[in-house]
């Protein structure tokens, strides 16, 4: 069996289930689906609501894209916790951003697809790389950040 084979039988598309897997709650939810999960990678998505708190003038802002990448990592970790039997996700936030590049801001209403890769885990700090594409596969943003988990 390939290491990269998804451990998800089927994508998680119900927002109620997503909200059980991430510590963030409305109005600060920037990810809405888990498409693939492996021990070290994840694929997530987000349909940007037009009334999202980080949309301005019909465009998803830079904080929105960065938060989406961070919450994609949160979702990966939440599913990892779910597999380990945790009944709720741990609180986690961004500890540092080693690098982030924003190529283009997506319009509200569009669908983001994000690939996260766990680079390193040490105690409660996780290093993660992320890249986000639009529907056509155009690269919108990349980042490498460290997230910190607390109880």
């Amino acid at each position, binding site marked *: 069996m390939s290491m990269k084979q998804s451990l998800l039988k089927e994508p998680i598309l119900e927002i109620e289930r997503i909200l059980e897997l991430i510590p963030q709650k409305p109005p600060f939810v920037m990810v809405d689906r888990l498409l693939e999960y492996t021990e070290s990678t994840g694929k997530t998505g987000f349909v940007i609501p037009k009334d999202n708190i*980080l949309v301005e003038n019909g465009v998803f802002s830079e904080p929105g894209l960065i938060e989406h990448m961070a919450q994609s990592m949160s979702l990966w970790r939440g599913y990892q916790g779910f597999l380990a039997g945790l009944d709720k996700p741990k609180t986690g936030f961004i500890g540092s951003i080693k690098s982030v590049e924003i190529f283009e801001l997506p319009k509200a209403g569009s669908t983001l697809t994000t690939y996260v890769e766990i680079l390193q885990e040490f105690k409660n700090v996780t290093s993660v790389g992320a890249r986000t594409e639009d529907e056509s596969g155009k690269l919108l943003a990349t980042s490498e950040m460290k997230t910190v988990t607390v109880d």
Partner: protein
Amino acid sequence: MLLKDFYSVESSKEEGGKWITHIKINKDHQVYDGHFPNRPVTPGVILIQLFKEDAERRLEKSLQLKNANNIKFMAVVDPKIHDELFLEYHFEDINQEIRLKGIAKTNEGISLKINAVYKLI
């Protein structure tokens, strides 16, 4: 302002080649309902945005974040404890790109260090 009613600018001055802007956070803002329930933490991405918006006011131009490196969140900004922030930064315009370097402080110390490059839009 991206987040409506999230903060007010109490003062802003240039001193010794850097800008110092005093910001008061609205600790009752709805963003804290979700980040996180019963545990308000100012989202790091919102702190980053403060610098862009302040530089936009200085320049009277719109900016878009292009890239950033080594942004460090040194201490959590819990609005119930720290609703006053001080941005200290300087920037230069190099070939139509704004290069900004700065820190955000509460009265207890540094919360954030940032290096960012913006394009004029």
